[in-house]
């Protein structure tokens, strides 16, 4: 006896819960691995998942097992050269052959790292867990409304271009079946009567003639039911739906004066990547504008932004001015959600700092959703930091943090964007 059951259509993701449990348990290790991975990405590369590497020993599940040493006996197949009493040097460890059962039970837990990939969504979720978009509440209130045409089922009238053929013909079949049902039933009984008479031995010529006439009349009636009727027609219906605008622009401002070395720029780059990833969670289209400055500011592409070296003094206000100009020119604040991140080593021409502060207060902050400033330096703060401190006190959507080393970047980012009700209020 055997019963066959086709289970192929059953859900495939029986292990999904267990997979999530696994990710949940090893969150801290996974996050560590993520932090390394971020550095290897381009700022706008957000469409791929990520490979996660966890040292295998962190994952092992311990159980009592035999260690190495002692007096062991093993049987192996394929003797090709040995005779009883041969002495052979002990094979070095980790060479698969001759591994005792005690060690074998420990296998699968080698020194290799445990590598697996997570999907893009899992990646982003882990990256931005517990983080919140700055000023989200306010955003939702003053987000610009756009309209989008969406399909909303079918209706009985409309323009010919919108006729849905399948739906219409379905209606036509249904109507034809409904309208001819009684006649078909009648036709069937008449057909049966006719064949009975024809098989009868007696002559029924007149009856047969009468029946045939009736059948013909019925068939005509059935044929007269129209194939398609205006009643059958169905049109696709459309409606306009309000959608909040999903456009954002992100300004990356960076000091590229001689005092900024490549390591510092790399730190800044990570910060921009994180911010970009973060914004993609809420906005569909994001423009990124890179502005680099020394004594003069210039709009550049990503490659140049991060990897070309210039020297000179530092006037931070030049970048802010350029940003303000670009906003006016291309990114109307009523159409775009504006975010900005400024990175610097804190060096600025002392007389310029008050000017920066003015620019921010007057022009930029009123138009932006969020402006973050990170200072990457090992030295004491200079004038720019102190000026910005004053702004931070009065503007909830201005944030600033101090980063010393690469390891700081992630905590600082989390700190900047953590769920903070007082900030949003």
């Amino acid at each position, binding site marked *: 006896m055997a*019963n066959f059951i086709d289970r192929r259509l059953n859900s495939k993701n029986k*292990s999904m819960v267990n997979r999530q449990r696994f990710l949940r348990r090893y969150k801290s290790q996974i996050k560590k691995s993520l932090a390394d991975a971020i550095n290897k990405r381009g700022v706008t590369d957000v469409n791929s998942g990520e490979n996660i590497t966890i040292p295998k020993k962190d994952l092992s599940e311990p159980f009592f097992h035999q260690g190495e040493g002692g007096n062991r006996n*093993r049987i192996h197949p394929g003797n090709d050269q040995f005779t009883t009493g041969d002495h052979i040097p002990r094979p070095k460890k980790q060479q698969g052959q001759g591994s005792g059962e005690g060690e074998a039970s420990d296998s699968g837990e080698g020194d290799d790292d445990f590598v697996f990939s997570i999907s893009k969504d899992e990646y982003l979720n882990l990256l931005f867990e517990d983080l919140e978009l700055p000023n989200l509440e306010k955003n939702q209130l003053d987000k610009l409304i756009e309209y989008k045409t969406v399909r909303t089922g079918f209706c009985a009238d409309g323009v010919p271009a919108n006729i849905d053929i399948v739906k219409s013909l379905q209606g036509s079949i249904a109507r034809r079946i409904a309208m001819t049902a009684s006649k078909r039933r009648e036709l069937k009984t008449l057909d049966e009567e006719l064949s009975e008479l024809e098989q009868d031995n007696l002559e029924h010529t007149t009856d047969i003639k009468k029946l045939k006439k009736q059948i013909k009349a019925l068939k005509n009636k059935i044929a007269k039911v129209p194939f398609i009727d205006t009643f059958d027609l169905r049109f696709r219906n459309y409606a306009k739906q309000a959608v909040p605008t999903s456009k954002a622009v992100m300004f990356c401002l960076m000091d590229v004066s001689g005092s900024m070395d490549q390591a510092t720029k790399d730190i800044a780059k990570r910060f921009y990547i994180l911010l970009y990833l973060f914004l993609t969670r809420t906005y569909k289209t994001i423009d990124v504008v890179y502005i680099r400055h020394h004594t003069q500011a210039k709009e550049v592409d990503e490659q140049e932004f991060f990897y070309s070296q210039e020297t000179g003094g530092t006037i931070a206000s030049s970048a802010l001015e350029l940003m303000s100009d670009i906003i006016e020119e291309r990114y109307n604040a009523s159409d775009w959600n504006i975010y900005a991140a400024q990175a610097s080593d804190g060096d600025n021409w002392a007389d310029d700092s008050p000017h920066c502060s003015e620019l921010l207060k007057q022009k930029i902050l009123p138009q932006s959703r969020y402006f973050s400033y990170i200072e990457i330096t090992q030295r004491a703060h200079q004038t720019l930091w102190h000026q910005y401190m004053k702004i931070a006190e009065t503007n909830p959507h201005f944030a600033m943090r101090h980063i010393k080393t690469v390891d700081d970047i992630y905590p600082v980012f989390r700190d900047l964007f953590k769920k903070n009700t007082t900030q949003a209020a």
Partner: protein
Amino acid sequence: MATQKKRKPLDDSADWTFELLEQYQAEIERVAKHYRLDTYVNQIEVITTEQMMDAYASVGMPIGYNHWTFGKKFIQTEQTYKRGRMGLAYEIVINSNPCIAYLMEENTMPMQALVMAHACYGHNSFFKSNYLFKSWTDADSIIDYLLFAKNYIADCEHKYGIDEVEATLDACHALMNHGVDRYKRPQKLSLDEELKRQKDREEYLESQVNTLWRTLPKNSQTADEKIPTFPAEPQENILYFIEKNAPLLKPWQREIVRIVRKVSQYFYPQKQTQVMNEGWACFWHYTILNHLYDEGLVTDKFMLEFLHNHTNVVAQPEYNSPYYSGINPYALGFNMFMDIRRICENPTDEDKAWFPDIAGSNWLDTLHFAMETFKDESFISQYLSPKLIRDFKLFHINDNEDNNYVEIAAIHNEQGYQQIRSMLSSQYNLSNIEVNIQIIDANVNGDRSLTLRYIPQNNVPLGSSKDEVLKHLHHLWQFDIKLVEEDEQGKDIIIGACPSPKDEN
């Protein structure tokens, strides 16, 4: 067979259909009956690759409780499979009644036939007739029990939080190998009874925690004198001891300990009969399909594909091959069963000397007897023949850490047969593979510390993971744990403790 009329062969196209599966199944069943294979009713489920990986991850349990370790196994399986490092097994079969076997969608028709003969008649009849499975597992109730376990643990997660339950399960998993009764046969379970008993236990235990009773000075003088040590005898089933005696475990935690223990017990016979079980299944798929071929029911084309796969399965790489990873249980088991049949049908003088009781006997009777009455260890020491030792060119290596070399202790010659046979047999003796750790003392009247003793086999020390395991044990017992090992003078030396003395400083 030769006298039978050649019949029209079954369709041998590579693509399978359900009708074709049924035709093959019917023929295989007929032949299996002819060879007196007694089976549970088969429930054959066709599944996809992903589902097969799911099944892998839950160690073949059709219903498993949720735990991260299964997620880890799934990810591992998926990774290695995607990289093409590993093919998936063609089948998984579950010791239950009805006997559930999974067929993979991707298999060709000859493969499906092989799998049906192998799993649905080979393994299935083994599950039903081998003495270990008969007395240690209950095929009728396992699915119900797993369902009960899954729901119970999900329930606990709701009530007490995922983290709490996970910590308890982790601790239990670490001790899973020590949750087995090796000698005492477990009771049969049924779902209703289990639910009722679980309620009873919970109520009883709750009634025990009545704080009023605790304050009573219970005739303390006599108790102190009477109980020198507890437990009276060393206990090897650590999880059982914990379930019954851990002082501070909550009722639901005891139940989880019990669930892990039961699952471990359920898999215990499979560990002990790997060679026999696989060998038996291979022997029958080979014999049944050849029988069908002799009857003319399957074509040459079918047989070629079948033999190709069969040969892969029962291949034994030699010790110096890059593919060598120990003795292949399929190869050893299959060849031993084939060899027993040969000894019965065409015994040589050597066989007559070594196996006087079976040489020339009815092979089918002898095979059934062997399958029903042995486990790997005893099966090998009973039936491994000199011819097979020669065929496999087996040799015995002694690796003593006192020497700076390893020694060839025996090879496949007249002087070596006995030694190789007994060594190979002990290699499959679970008590040689799994470490021997017993609870010797629980200081119930003092500081409630728990003492375990490790008894080394052949001077093999305990692996380094012991400290981690002790932490898990401490999680369950919640008082001090000590692990001792007896030295040559018979004195106990402490080799591990939790909390470790270092932590306290």
